[in-house]
């Protein structure tokens, strides 16, 4: 991937409010073709609304731009043909069988040889034998696989995934991400919203939005580097009481416990070191300065941004 790769998504100044309540404000994003772009942010931060604006399901109040070189305001119909959109909630027909759902999608997109394509998709899913099963009787993981198969049936150039792995087990999640990387390698651009940090780390680039504002974006390393956050860890049995003692101390913005390890973070390196030095004396824990994790950075960002509701 080079910087010269053409942009699959290039929007700026997007605003959208519902009933006078702003949900997305002055949003801008550029995604290069073939990229997997992670879209992170707390619940209600405007991720779904932004994705819907990108695929023409919602009209922005102001702002605009292009999606696959097509205007998101005026070329909605053309965008729909080249975009695959996987909704947060399973939105295929539960009273249709797996095969019937795929056939419906294939026919709506007027695909040539739709029978063949559906057969291929079923085979790839490993669902050929269960193709007559009703979609509503599938487990969460299988529903997600079916939804992915259905929304890439027409070989879209851009795939928009809205929290695709919510409620899916780790194995299915890993398979899913392997598949996403395969698709990206074939040249598909993928924009995926998620709450999972490990998924964010699998993206080429990420953007973090909170309460309608874009807070940061870049590669994972860039986002962490730019956060201005410094982190120390303390590891050992019984770090729990230490966490309570440390939080709120000057120089310490955030304390999070991961099993037997504490992540102690702050934006002022010297003040943080001072606080750590005062706390570590005689504790017997293993102390070390490390890179903040993506999660540390996001929790920090969330704490900074003001909820506007």
């Amino acid at each position, binding site marked *: 991937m080079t910087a010269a790769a053409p942009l699959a998504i290039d929007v700026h100044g997007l605003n959208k409010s519902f009933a006078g309540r702003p949900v997305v404000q002055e949003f801008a994003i550029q995604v290069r073709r073939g990229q997997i772009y992670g879209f992170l942010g707390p619940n209600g931060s405007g991720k779904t609304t932004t994705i*819907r604006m990108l*695929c*023409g*399901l*919602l*009209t922005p109040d102001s702002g605009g731009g292009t999606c696959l070189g097509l205007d998101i305001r005026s070329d*909605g*119909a053309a965008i*729909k*043909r080249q*975009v695959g*959109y996987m*909704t947060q*909630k*399973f*939105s*295929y*027909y*539960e*009273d*249709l069988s797996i095969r*019937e759902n795929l*056939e*419906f*999608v294939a*026919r*709506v*997109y*007027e695909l040539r040889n739709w029978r063949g394509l559906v057969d291929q998709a079923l085979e790839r899913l490993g669902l050929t034998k269960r193709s007559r099963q*009703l979609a509503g009787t599938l487990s969460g993981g299988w529903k997600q696989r079916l939804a992915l198969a259905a929304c890439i049936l027409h070989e879209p150039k851009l795939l928009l995934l809205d929290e695709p792995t919510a409620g899916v087990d780790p194995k299915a999640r890993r398979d899913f991400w392997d598949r996403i990387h395969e698709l990206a390698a074939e040249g598909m651009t993928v924009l995926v919203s998620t709450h999972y940090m490990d998924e964010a780390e699998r993206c080429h680039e990420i953007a973090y939005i909170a309460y309608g504002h874009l807070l940061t974006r870049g590669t994972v390393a860039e986002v962490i580097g730019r956060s201005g956050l410094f982190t120390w860890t303390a590891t050992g049995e019984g770090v729990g009481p230490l966490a309570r003692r440390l939080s709120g101390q000057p120089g310490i913005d955030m304390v999070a416990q991961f099993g037997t390890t504490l992540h102690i973070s702050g934006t002022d390196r010297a003040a943080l070191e001072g606080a750590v030095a005062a706390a570590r004396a005689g504790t017997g824990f293993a102390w070390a300065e490390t890179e903040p994790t993506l999660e540390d950075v996001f929790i920090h960002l969330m704490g900074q941004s003001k909820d506007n509701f």
Partner: protein
Amino acid sequence: MRLPNLRRCGAMIVKEFIQMRRDRLTFAMMIGVPIMQLIMFGFAINTDPKHLPTALHSADHSVFSRSLVQALENSGYFRITREVDDPKQLDWLLAIGEVQFAVTIPAGFGRDLQRGDHPLLLIEADATDPAATSNAIGALGQLNRTALNHDLTGPLAALKDPPPAFELRIHRRYNPEGITQYNIVPGLMGVILTMTGVMMTALAVTRERERGTMENLLAMPVKPGEVMLGKILPYIAVGYVQVLVVLLAARFLFGVPMIGSLWLLSGSVLLFIAANLAVGFTFSTIAMNQLQAMQMSFFFFLPSILLSGYMFPFRGMPDWAQAIGSVLPVTHFLRIVRGILLKGNGVHEVLPDLWPIALFLVLVTVIALKRYRQTLD
């Protein structure tokens, strides 16, 4: 607007049929409702009730009294169920509703009649329900002129009514025997198609929104017109099945005459079903969920059944009610279907009721397509 794409439409239609087949209860309702209504309305409703229970207090035992009672029973409307000695009992029987009529023949009726004193015969009716008594009362009009014709012979012949100045001839055309089913059963077609048609489409589209599949549908390249056609065409097929059920029952169960062209009827049915489905589709663009869609359907159904002339005579309604009724497609369809089946009406006679349905269809379709949101805004 560009023409709908047939392949995308086809995909919608196939999907709709599959869903319809899977939804057993709804499917059963589509066929079950017409059959239930046929049984209830067809067999149970009679707007010309006969053999009504009648109480008699006769203080006179002349041949004339017997002839009168005989004539009452022969009219078909009266059946003497009680004979009482005390006239006060008549009030009681009327009050508790045991009888519909009370007949009082006063003492000396025969004697006074022979004398030419024109005695009084009192018939009291429980007229709380006008429909139950009006025809019977109408039949009484002839009674005093004809009932005693056989008995007034010889010197009494002078008491007979003189022949009237002119002769009145009444032709009860299209339904000479006044059989209620001839009117109700063809009308049922309109009621059934309105009820199921509006509700089914309203639910079918709202269901997509409620289950979240609408979001997906909108993200795909189907256009509003295609969604609408895809939703409507399967239910037109259902409508025709319902029409077939009603027609078969009308023919073989109720012996309703079918004089006019069934082809003309089929054509009118198509227009009428489409109009109802368009209403349903419009409701679905307003309703937030299936419950609301159902409620709106009932709002539409109520005037359709009450103001259309199905249950109660259209001309008996005040002007404002007639005006509302005239907007509803079912009002015109009832006239069409009754006209074709009973009167043998052709295109020419049907046209004045066909165009209001067509106009309604066009207007509602425009509203539906305008309201159908192609985005989630």
